[in-house]
């Protein structure tokens, strides 16, 4: 009990501090890092919900991200929608895509899911580049309008920082509420032992579709907000290297460990930039980390803590009884 309240106060304080950053510094680079962290926090938590809690390896996250981004951008530039509905529509479309992908592949197997999501992400890239009449092709859509939410005109970096941080907090709260609820418990149960879960009345398909769809919509909306910050959307939002980055964040933080993934996300957004790794070396390093993590500690840092817990109990159980 006290531990959870401590965690709550700690995260509350951290949030206040994060939101206060633009008030104490006008260093736009810090804000840019903040924006990048806030965005990736949604992406990696979304992937964590699907892979970590539901055990489904999804390569489609980057597809949802770009789908939301393009939808929002096109609705605002072509149909003069205002920002909020445009972004929500982006999220909705991503959710539909997630539902269709999930339903068509999950009836078959987790293998099919992994491969279908992969092709979905690749197809998104092809469409973005080659369906010119719709997406304007590789030129992308530059000079996106400044979004306004109500009376708030989101133009300065500080505004975008607050916007994306705010959205990220919202999205992560939703995910946190879900995974700590008994639905999350059921998702883990299904991941840990599908047959047993079924024998206890849990419907695997329904829970998995919930995870995929929710994660898709949250990721899609993140894409929508993020491209307004970039002021341009082009096919590189589907860059496979985003997928690799998301994966490494989840794997390192520990699949199925909410806080672990957020921490590794923070570390991996901030550190490489400050150390100014070139992307090549960064990806070589990430690849190596991925291999080692998978072979040595498949559960990531979070999983390692879990095993410590088991060991402690083993000592209680087979050591001296109370």
């Amino acid at each position, binding site marked *: 009990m006290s531990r959870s309240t401590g965690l709550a106060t700690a995260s509350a304080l951290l949030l206040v501090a994060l939101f206060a950053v633009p008030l104490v510094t006008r260093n*736009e680079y810090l804000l840019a*890092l903040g924006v990048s962290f806030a965005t990736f926090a949604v992406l990696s938590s979304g992937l964590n919900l699907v892979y970590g809690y539901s055990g489904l390896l999804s390569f489609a996250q980057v597809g949802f991200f770009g789908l939301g981004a393009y939808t929002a951008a096109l609705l605002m530039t072509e149909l003069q929608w205002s920002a909020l509905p445009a972004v929500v529509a982006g999220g909705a479309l991503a959710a539909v895509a997630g539902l269709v992908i999930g339903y068509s592949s999950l009836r078959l197997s987790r293998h099919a899911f992994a491969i279908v999501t992969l092709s979905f992400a690749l197809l998104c890239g092809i469409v973005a580049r080659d369906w010119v009449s719709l997406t304007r092709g590789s030129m992308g859509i530059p*000079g996106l309008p400044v979004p306004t939410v109500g009376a708030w005109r989101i133009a300065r970096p500080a505004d975008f920082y607050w916007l994306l941080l705010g959205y990220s907090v919202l999205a992560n709260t939703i995910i946190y509420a879900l995974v700590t609820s008994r639905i999350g418990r059921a998702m883990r149960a299904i991941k840990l032992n599908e047959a047993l879960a079924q024998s206890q009345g849990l419907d695997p398909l329904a829970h998995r579709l919930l995870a995929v769809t929710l994660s898709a919509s949250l990721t899609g909306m993140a894409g929508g907000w993020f491209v307004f910050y*970039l002021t341009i959307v082009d096919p*590189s939002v589907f*860059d496979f290297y985003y997928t690799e980055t998301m994966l490494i964040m989840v794997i390192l933080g520990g699949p199925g460990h909410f806080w672990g993934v957020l921490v590794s996300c923070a570390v991996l957004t901030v*550190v490489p930039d400050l150390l100014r790794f070139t992307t090549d070396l960064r990806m070589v390093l990430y690849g190596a980390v991925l291999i080692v993590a998978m072979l040595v500690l498949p559960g990531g840092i979070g999983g390692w803590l879990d095993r410590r817990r088991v060991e402690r109990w083993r000592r209680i159980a087979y050591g001296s009884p109370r």
Partner: protein
Amino acid sequence: MKPLVRSVTGVLLTLAMLGAGAQTGAPIVIGASIPLTGGVSTFGQHSRWGSELAIAEANAAGGVLGRKLEIDYQDNRCNPAEAVKSVTQMIAEKKYVAIFDGLCSSAALAIMPLVERAEIPFVVANASATAIAEKSGVGGNKWTFKVNPTDASMLDALVAWLDKEGKAANIAFLGEDTDFGRAGVAGLEAALKKRNRALASVDFYQKGTADFTTVFAKIKAKKPGLLALYAIDADFQNAMRQWYAAGGGIPLTGRVLVDQVPKAIMASGFLDGTTSVQPYDPSIDTPGNKAFVEAFQKRFQTAPILVSFEAYETTRVLIDAIKRAGSTEPAAIRDALTKTKYPSLLGNTIDFDDHNLAHNNAVILGIRGGKVVVLGFSKT
């Protein structure tokens, strides 16, 4: 926990850097955001070499305003998100007097709003999208300057030339589905439209495609007079071999990298009749270019390509502006840039129009008798 600590200290370091402004005596630093990794890193490398050479020469000549010049490169892997991050970082560090290039159009377009807000000059050397110039100068962004000509203007010159030779009638187009290819087809179609003509056929391929046999068979079957080929790097090399293997000897046009055609194919005369337009070719016979090619060869053991030239000349334009500005105040440099009268290696004088767009000469190149020949220059 340790990495967290490290990141925090890192953040503090960046904060500290804010204090250290550019006091006199310290070098004048230019920030460059170019792809050093990813699919187009080859060009990033050449852009880097070109600008490095220009800086080195300026320093050898005693620097600028009595201070040494420096240029820092950051990787943007041709991705707007990375471009924004890298440039925001450079702007935040305050020590940079100007931002250089971006190389990819999408990256450059993403950088433009940043430099406008930060009020720091941004010189574009390679990005080809016309949108860049449209949005600059009277187009709104007073801080962006595009030194390389837009495809539209170059292709208009090319088509004029082809029309004169009576070859504009039956041109097929094949290009990569990137801004390079899209800009190419847009430029050609516009230029042909002006002369009541159109392209015989238009095809795109995914960048990174290794096999062109199919699309080549299709194009050959249409028996075009010329093939406008927009391929670069590995794709171009693959296309060359397979176009040769396909036979039929249909010459090329568009922005063909004539200097990268495999020697054997060049010598065979297979591509004779090819007419290409480029902002540059190493074989251009002016004293300035001769000296540049020689210096580049000597320094990097490889011949310069278009990208390296554009980077070189753009950097020199920037240095010239800093000289004339007589200070490293961004506004002063910008005003100096607008008044640029820079003698290009290609002979003529570079100055910016009211869209901050320079109109250097384009060179019309041909392959005749198994050799590259400069057919002439044309104002863009």
